[in-house]
């Protein structure tokens, strides 16, 4: 038995991925659940528009963090109902209070579930008649409405990273990647041929899950379908690129799954669709801002629930586009290197010339 235990420890020591899961994962989970898993909102981004903005601002509980920027304040003083609605739609504030009405109307962004629940509760405790509450985009604060747009991204991430990497590593494990490398196929043909089916399947999944979300859970689709598809395509390139990258660093399907899980887990916990990013300490939330799912959640919830357009969502689109270019290019270059060593093509050419 002693020999068996020793053997197991020796094997584990050399299995770096399992060691990472054994050591890094518990620490990651401890940090996330200790610091980040926080449903309590202490800070709600707020804008108050209209001529009485200063007085209303002064009456708000501390929880409401009114933008003190001078330009914003000047703009808000001149603003009206439409200004308040635009601020919420464009995700510039979780709460926008319109003082042109009597009493003032607090528009709450229902697509930001936890902030909305907290804001609604806090505003309801103000003296009677102080404000009228209007929850936009998700009036009943239904959890499914917020979850489904984010889940679409999670499903795409799952297909893009785990399924794609398994499919590619299978070629390596079965020895067929080597076979493909010596066939008269261009590396680009092999790469596109390998990735295209997963792209198509993930796109079909995206359509099915979106339709089911709308049909079963009555999730509204208030925005532009083409813009949603465009965002989905960019996001797919990012996650497919991650899948290809994982496959180039894995020799077996089990290794690929391990690495994919280590990429998937932070996306679930830190992208803001379960635990609000605004409730996390900055030391943790920055991780969320380098994860692609965070930006997909912005885009997906924005388009479906708020009917947001490209003008307000472009920062998320831009970040995802940069990620797509960098990750996908790196993945294709690494995969190409596996298929065709750089000097091979030269020697093949010279041999052709020689014959």
């Amino acid at each position, binding site marked *: 038995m002693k020999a068996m235990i020793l053997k197991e420890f020796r094997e584990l020591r050399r299995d770096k991925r399992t060691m990472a899961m054994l050591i890094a994962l518990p620490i990651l989970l401890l940090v996330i659940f200790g610091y980040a898993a926080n449903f309590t909102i202490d800070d709600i981004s707020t804008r108050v528009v209209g001529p009485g903005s200063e007085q209303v601002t002064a009456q708000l509980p501390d929880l409401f963090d009114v933008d003190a920027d001078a330009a914003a304040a000047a703009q808000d003083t001149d603003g009206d109902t439409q200004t308040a609605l635009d601020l919420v739609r464009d995700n510039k504030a979780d709460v926008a209070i319109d003082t042109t009405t009597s009493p003032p109307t607090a528009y709450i962004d229902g697509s930001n579930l936890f902030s909305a629940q907290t804001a609604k509760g806090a505003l309801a405790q103000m003296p009677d008649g102080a404000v009228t509450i209007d929850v936009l985009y998700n009036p009943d604060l239904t959890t499914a409405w917020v979850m489904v747009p984010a889940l679409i991204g999670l499903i795409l991430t799952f297909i893009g990273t785990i399924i794609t990497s398994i499919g590619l590593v299978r070629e390596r494990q079965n020895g067929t990647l080597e076979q493909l490398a010596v066939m008269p196929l261009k590396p680009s043909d092999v790469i596109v041929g390998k990735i295209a089916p997963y792209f198509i399947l993930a796109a079909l999944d995206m359509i099915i899950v979106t339709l089911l979300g709308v049909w079963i859970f009555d999730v509204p689709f208030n925005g532009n379908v083409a813009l949603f598809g465009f965002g989905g395509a960019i996001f797919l390139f990012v996650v497919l690129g991650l899948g290809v990258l994982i496959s180039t660093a894995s020799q077996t399907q089990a290794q690929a799954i391990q690495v994919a899980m280590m990429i998937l887990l932070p996306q679930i916990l830190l992208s803001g669709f379960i635990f609000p990013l605004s409730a996390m300490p900055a030391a943790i939330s920055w991780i969320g801002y380098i994860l692609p799912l965070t930006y997909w959640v912005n885009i997906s919830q924005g388009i479906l629930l708020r009917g947001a357009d490209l003008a307000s969502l472009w920062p998320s689109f831009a970040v995802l586009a940069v990620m797509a270019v960098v990750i996908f290019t790196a993945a294709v270059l690494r995969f190409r290197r596996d298929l065709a*060593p750089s000097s091979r093509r030269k020697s093949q050419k010279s041999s052709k010339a020689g014959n």
Partner: protein
Amino acid sequence: MSAWGARELTVTYGDTVALTNVSVDVREGEVLAVVGGDGAGKTTLLRALAGAVPAAEGEVNAPSLGSIGFMPTAAGVWRDLSVDQNIDFVASAQGVTGATLAERREQLLADTGLEGATKRLAGQLSGGMRQKLAFALAMIHRPPMLILDEPSTGVDPVSRVDLWRMISQAAVDGAAIIMATTYLDEAERASRVLVLDGGEILLAGTPADVMANVPGHVADAGQTTDRARSWRRGSRFKTWSPDEPVEGVARADDLEDAVIAATLAKETSNA
């Protein structure tokens, strides 16, 4: 007559030198067997000829990718595709279509005895059947050069006979065939043999040349006299001696003795 091969080829994997200064050529209609122990460099040589690994030094003279038939160690068949689907995919990649494909499919299935298994998944085939399918895939486009990495390893004796029949027929049809094997009785059937050890050429030539060029000689003995230089063959022992044989006595009785003797001679000279 075309000859493919490599000149003064050196291949490295990081800091590890897998092949050093290896020159080899294989001509149309001949079978060149590459033999050697584990880590000798057999697979690296074949992969370099197929273009799957780059040369650190030297040059490879191989036909274009579409003119190579390659069978990797791990068979290289798609396990989740049926026999027919494997043939369809490789034929399509190699540009074999229509009547030519139908004719090749019929012939290769008949040669490999896989006619009754066309709908079976490659992953469900026996080891021998899978190796024969892999050979059929390598042959589908009638390549002028066939590179086979241990095609008969782990294959039952009957399937080995079938594989050799197909390899010989391919050579008769004009293909230049280079194959790695761990079976020295198989290597004796080849036109020429290349013996590798530690990434270097130990011996090369026809099987007869290789046996004739062994340093020293191999003696047959009823029991072992020198453990470091003796090995068992059946119920008897063989012992290598660095001394020249008596005139008229063969240096080695067969290729297996020759390869073991050459390896011991190298170890002795390196000691």
